[in-house]
C-alpha cells in the first residue's frame, strides 16, 4: 500500500533536539521532492519542559500540520503518556530505550537513541538515528537521506567528511534497528519534485525577507516571543548602506523610533507580539494622526497579558484594528501561509507608503515558527511602492488637502509640524470644530486607497460561505474539501487584506445569507468586524493555544451548515 502523506511527531524535553529532528527531516524530505511543513510548540523555559515538534511530509503541498500522528517519537516517558492517544490506530511509536522501557503494546518499539549515536563516534547524531528509523517505517529510499546529510554537512571544514560518515551510519543503525522489530507503515509514494525553484523557509524569515524586498531601511525592536527572530535577523542583515537596525530599551521606544524614522523618510518597521503591541498603542495612534508611514508586525501569541508566549492564537485582530484611543482604524493585513508572510509584508509596506500611515501585519506563532517549502519568490517581480514626496517650494501646507497629499521629508522642502494633537493645515494645534471635521475626514478618506486587495472566491453561487483568515486558512481549506466530498455546496472566500477589505469582496459578502469564520479566539473577533460592516457572519472558535484540527473543524462546519442533513443548510 502506498500513502501520500505522513505525520511524525517528536516529543520530549526541551533541549533534546526536537527542533533539529523536525527541521532535519523537513530538509531531507523537501530535498527529495516532498512537500513539508513543521509545527512546534514550546514551553517558555530555555531548558527542559515538555516540548514537541511535528513534521508533515506529503506528495502535494501541505496546508495544515495535520490531525493524527503516524509516527510518534518519544524521548521520554512523559512524552509517551501525553501524546500516545493522538497516534492513529495504524500508527507506530518509537521510544527512547535509553530513557524507559514499555511492555509490548503492539504499537511501539524502543531504540537506544544515545547508545547508537555514540557507537558512530558522534553522540550528536541521535536525531539521525530517529530519522533513519522513520525512513525504514515509510520505506523512504536511503539515497534521499544520503544526499541531505552530504549537502548539509559539506561546509568546507576539516571534519566534514567524518561528520557526514557518522550521520549516515547513525541513520543506517536506526533503519536496521527498526527493521529488526518487524514494524512497517505504508510505503511513502514517490515524490513529484516541483519543477520551479523552491526554498525551505519559516514564517518569521519570510516576513524578514519581505521587508527587505519592500525596501526596508530602518528597524527597531525589542525581544519578545515569537517575534524575536525578526529582530535578530534585522540586526545581522540590515546593516551598512544607510540602513539601521537596533534593539531598543522597550516597545515604547521602538515604536516611537520607528515613527521618527518614517517621518524622516525611511521605510521603517518593528515586530512584536501582544504585550508589546499594547505598549505601542499610543504611538500608533500618533502615526495615524500625523500621517507617518511604517509597518508593525504583530506575531500573535496567546493572550491576554503575558498569556501564552509560545502558543498560537488569532486574538489580536480587534486590537490591531483599534490599537489606540480615539477615532482611528488602522489597516490590517494577515498572511495565512508561510509564503503569504513574504507577500503580506511587502503589501504592508506598500500600503503604509501609499496611504501615509501605520499598517499592522498580523502574523501568528504557528506561521512564524513553521518551516515550509514554498516556490522561491521572484523578487524582481515584486511590486514596490514609495510614498509621494513633496518636491515644491517652502510655505507648503501639508494637511490642507481633504485627501492624501505629498509628504515633505526633513532636509527637503516644505517644513511642517507633524502634530499628534489635532492640527491645522500647517500642523499647528487647533481646536476649531470645522478643522477636526476636515482632518478626521481626510484621515479616513485615505483608507479608500487600500480597497483594491486581491481575494480568493470559489463556488460563489452558494448563499452560504466559509471565510477563514490568517493561519486558519490551511486547516479550513482541508476541512472545506472534506465538506465538498460530502456534497455540501458552500462558497469559499479568503483574503490577507482584512482592513479595509477589498471593496468587491465586501460587496459579495453582503449578498450572502451566512458567512462562517473559523478563528482561534473566544469572542469571534473577525466575524464581529464583518457584522459591523453588515455581513451576516458568525464564527467557529477555538481557544486552546493550538491550530484547528481538520476533522474536528470539518465536523463543526458540517454541523452548522448541514445539521447532519448534508444538503439543506440551516441559516
Amino acid at each position, binding site marked *: 500500500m502506498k500513502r501520500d502523506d505522513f505525520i511524525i511527531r517528536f516529543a520530549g524535553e526541551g533541549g533534546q533536539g526536537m527542533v533539529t529532528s523536525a527541521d532535519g527531516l523537513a*530538509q531531507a524530505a523537501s530535498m527529495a521532492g516532498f512537500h513539508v511543513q513543521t509545527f512546534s510548540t514550546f514551553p517558555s523555559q530555555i531548558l527542559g519542559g515538555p516540548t514537541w515538534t511535528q513534521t508533515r511530509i506529503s506528495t502535494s503541498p501541505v496546508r495544515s500540520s495535520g490531525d493524527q500522528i503516524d509516527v510518534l517519537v518519544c524521548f521520554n516517558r512523559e512524552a509517551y503518556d501525553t501524546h500516545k492517544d493522538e497516534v492513529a490506530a495504524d500508527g507506530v511509536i518509537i521510544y527512547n530505550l535509553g530513557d524507559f522501557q514499555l511492555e509490548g503494546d503492539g504499537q511501539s518499539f524502543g531504540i537506544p537513541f544515545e547508545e547508537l549515536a555514540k557507537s558512530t563516534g558522534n553522540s550528536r547524531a541521535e536525531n539521525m538515528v530517529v530519522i533513519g528509523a522513520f525512513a525504514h517505517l515509510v520505506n523512504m529510499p536511503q539515497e534521499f537521506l544520503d544526499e541531505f546529510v552530504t549537502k548539509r554537512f559539506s561546509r568546507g571544514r576539516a571534519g566534514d567528511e567524518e561528520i557526514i560518515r557518522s550521520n549516515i551510519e547513525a541513520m543506517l543503525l536506526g533503519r536496521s534497528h527498526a527493521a529488526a522489530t518487524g514494524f512497517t507503515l505504508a510505503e511513502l509514494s514517490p515524490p513529484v519534485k516541483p519543477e520551479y*525553484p*523552491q*526554498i525551505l*523557509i519559516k514564517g518569521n*524569515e519570510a516576513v*524578514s*525577507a519581505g521587508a*527587505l*524586498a519592500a525596501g526596508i531601511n*530602518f528597524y*527597531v525592536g525589542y525581544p519578545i516571543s515569537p517575534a524575536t527572530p525578526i529582530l535578530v535577523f534585522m540586526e545581522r*542583515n*540590515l*546593516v*551598512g*548602506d544607510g*540602513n*539601521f537596525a*537596533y534593539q*531598543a*530599551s*522597550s516597545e*515604547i*521606544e521602538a*515604536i*516611537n*523610533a*520607528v*515613527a*521618527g*524614522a518614517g*517621518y*524622516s523618510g*525611511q521605510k*521603517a518597521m518593528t515586530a512584536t507580539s501582544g504585550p508589546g503591541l499594547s505598549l505601542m498603542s*499610543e*504611538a500608533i495612534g*500618533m502615526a495615524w494622526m*500625523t500621517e507617518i508611514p511604517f509597518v508593525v508586525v504583530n506575531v500573535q501569541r496567546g493572550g491576554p497579558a503575558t498569556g501564552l508566549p509560545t502558543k498560537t492564537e488569532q486574538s489580536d485582530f480587534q486590537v490591531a484594528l483599534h490599537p489606540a484611543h480615539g477615532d482611528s482604524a488602522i489597516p490590517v493585513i494577515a498572511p495565512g501561509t508561510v509564503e503569504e508572510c513574504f507577500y503580506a509584508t511587502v503589501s504592508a509596506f506598500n500600503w503604509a507608503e501609499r496611504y501615509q500611515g501605520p499598517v499592522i501585519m498580523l502574523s501568528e506563532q504557528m506561521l512564524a515558527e513553521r518551516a515550509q517549502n514554498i516556490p522561491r*519568490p521572484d*523578487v524582481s517581480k515584486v511590486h514596490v511602492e514609495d510614498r509621494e514626496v513633496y518636491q515644491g517650494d*517652502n510655505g507648503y501646507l501639508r494637511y490642507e488637502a481633504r485627501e492624501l497629499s505629498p509628504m515633505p521629508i*526633513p*532636509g527637503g*522642502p516644505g*517644513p*511642517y*509640524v*507633524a*502634530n*499628534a494633537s489635532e492640527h*491645522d493645515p*500647517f*500642523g*499647528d*494645534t*487647533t*481646536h476649531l470644530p470645522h*478643522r477636526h471635521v476636515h482632518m478626521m475626514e481626510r484621515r479616513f478618506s485615505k483608507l479608500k486607497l487600500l480597497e483594491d486587495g486581491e481575494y480568493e472566491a470559489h463556488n460563489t453561487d452558494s448563499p452560504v460561505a466559509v471565510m477563514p483568515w490568517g493561519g486558519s486558512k490551511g486547516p479550513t481549506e482541508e476541512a472545506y474539501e472534506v465538506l465538498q466530498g460530502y456534497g455540501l455546496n458552500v462558497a469559499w472566500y479568503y483574503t490577507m487584506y482584512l482592513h479595509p477589505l477589498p471593496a468587491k469582496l465586501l460587496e459579495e459578502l453582503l449578498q450572502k445569507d451566512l458567512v462562517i469564520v473559523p478563528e482561534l479566539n473566544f469572542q469571534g473577533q473577525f466575524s464581529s468586524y464583518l457584522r459591523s460592516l453588515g455581513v451576516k457572519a458568525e464564527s467557529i472558535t477555538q481557544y486552546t493555544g493550538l491550530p484547528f484540527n481538520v476533522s474536528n473543524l470539518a465536523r463543526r462546519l458540517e454541523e452548522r451548515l448541514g445539521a447532519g442533513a448534508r444538503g439543506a443548510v440551516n441559516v
Partner: protein
Amino acid sequence: MSKKNPEYDFKWCPGCGDFGVRRALEMAMQRWTVKTEQPIEQNVVVAGIGCSGNLVHLLEGQQPFGFHGIHGRSLPLALGVKMGNPELNVVVVAGDGDFLSIGGEHIAPQAARNLNVCVVVMDNGVYGLTKGQSSPTTVEGTVTSSTPYGKMEAQVSPLHLYMTLGVSFVASGFSSKVREMADLIMQGMEHPGFAIVHVQSPCTTYNNTYDVLKGDPAKGIAPVIYDIPDEHDPADRSAAMAMVDSPGLPLGLIYQDPGSVPLEQRLATATVNARSRKAEDVFDSLMI
C-alpha cells in the same frame, strides 16, 4: 509659525520663561544654518507635550521641521528621526514632567548610546499645561494641587542625574539669560553626542521661582544661580560631579566629554565589515 496663524489658540502666560528659551533656540538655529551653510530645513525640532512643547508652534521666522509627538516620548522619536537621517540637526524640547517623569526611562538608554541630539529641558518645577501639579523637580514639601499636604517625594536633581547616567554634554541655563542660553544650545548642537541643556524656565502662573533663582536683596533672598567660573574645566568629570553636588545652581557648561563618540559613528565602526543582505541572498541560502 503661529503668530500669523489665527487657528492656533495656545498662548504662553505673560512672563513665562519659555519665551526666552524660544528666542535662544531661534538664535542658535539661525547661527547653526550660517555656520554650517545648511538650510533651515536640515533642522528638526522634536517637542514633548506640555506648555514647553508648544515652542515648536511658536517659533518665529524661518521654519524648521517639527514633530510634536506624545507625552514623554520625545527622545525615542528623536532616536528615529536622527538615525533615520544622521545628517539632520535634531533638537528636542521638553518640560520637566515630560522629560524626567513620564519620559524618565528614555534618558539612560540615549546616554548609553550617545544619541547625537541636543535636548533643551524647560524646567519650571511644575506641570504647567495640566494646571499646577507637582513634578520631579518640585521642591519637597511644596503644596500643589496634587500635593495638598505637601510633596512627599525628594526633589530630583536633574544635573546630578545626567552626570550619573553618563550624558556626554551637560549644561545649565536660565531663561532670562537668552544670549548665554543660545551659546549653550549652539554648543550642544555641535557636540558629537547626547547633549542636554537644562534650563530654569519659571512658570509665572503655578510656580514663580524668579525671586528664588535670581535672589531679591529687598526681600532678603540670596540668589541660587551663579555663573560657572572661567577656571572650571568642562572636560574634568570629577570637578563637574563636585559642582552639581554642591549648593547653588551653576549656569554654563558643566561637563563635556572630550572623547565623545556619537551613536552613528559607533554603528559605522561596529559594522564596518558587516555585509547587508537582500531578499535574494536570503533565498539563495534557503534553496532546496
